[in-house]
């Protein structure tokens, strides 16, 4: 059986857990209906983020979108979050089945 895939864009944002509620509200307003959030730990420009308590916790938000929406969302994040919050966000091409979901 051959598998039929289509190309979509995965937007991943790794950021402070403190902004979760606000970020999700913004994503909803941008028309993003589906995402996955996981707890994340690591080290970066803002030092060690070991998740030992709320103030040092990070989250990773992932969403699979059509390319134009992924780009506009990334630009929105850059404009509204990059200056004041610890955030890394990037795009990747991914192959999906059931492309109508994304």
């Amino acid at each position, binding site marked *: 059986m051959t598998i039929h895939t289509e190309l979509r864009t995965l937007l991943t944002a790794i950021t402070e857990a*403190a902004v979760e509620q606000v970020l999700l509200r913004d994503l909803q307003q941008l028309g993003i209906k589906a995402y996955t959030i996981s707890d994340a730990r690591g080290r970066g420009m*803002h*030092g060690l983020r070991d998740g*030992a*308590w709320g*103030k040092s916790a990070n989250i990773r938000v992932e969403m699979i979108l059509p390319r134009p929406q992924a780009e506009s969302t990334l630009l929105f994040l850059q404009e509204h979050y990059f*200056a*004041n919050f610890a955030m890394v966000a990037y795009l990747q091409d991914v192959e999906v089945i059931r492309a109508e979901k994304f």
Partner: protein
Amino acid sequence: MIDVVVMFFLLGLAAGLMRSDLKLPAALYESLAVFLLLAIGLKGGLGLAQQPILPLLPQLALVISLGAALTLFGFVVLKGVGRLNRADAASMAAHYGSVSVATYAVGVNWLSSRQIAFESQMVIFLAVMEIPAILVGIVLVRGMGKDTQWGKLAHETFLGKGVVLLLGGMAIGWAAGPEELAPIKPLFFELFKGVLALFLLEMGLIVSRQFDEIKKRGAFILAFGVLMPLFSAALGLFCGLLLGLSLGGLTLLATLAASASYIAVPATMRLAVPEANPVISLAAVLGVTFPFNVVFGIPLYHRLASYFHGVF
């Protein structure tokens, strides 16, 4: 002799500074915080059921003003002497105008182990004093302009987990009364000290992580972290004397005034004033003021309270 719960704090601090791999799960820390907030609320509510509530209203007005005054004072010092920018100064001042539940819990524990009584309304003071500093801090940066989404901020401030659990616990304690509470007493009242000890162990670890930042920021943070709570405690004592509080009440109000928030305020300020650097405030609050208060401050405030309680 250092209190046994403070010894747990020092253990956590030492372990963290020596880079031990000791680590408590984040979920446990959150659970212990929920327990402490509920236990403090329940106990306060139980006490409040035995006294009329209305006469407390003017007292609340005074402690709200106390929180606002401390924030303004902190702001002037941080901006004028510390040369912090407006956002950093206002955000950090809000931390110092607000209160720390953990410091309060250590104060309650310190008084209880010496059989010193205190007024039940102290727990309402604790809940109420979280709030004015946040509002004053935001106004100092944003003004009263339309840019601030006050509805959203009010939601975050008044429905934060600290306020909900404290007031919720208080309401349950008040409504249930001593007989209904008897079955849950072993958990919430008798285990209080043990849970506080575990919580402080984690606090020690958290505090140890702030030391690198303090080394970077230098003497001003250190000086402000110690002198600000001393000034705040004096103002708290003065308010306590105006309110005619008992010796235990005076000590606790001084402790509350001297304490600085590291949960509710950082969370709200991070969103309301995102341009303020959260690291400076947390380094001062957690790295200097919290340890100073729990190890030296509380006994000192009690001594001052004893002196003034005798005089007036």
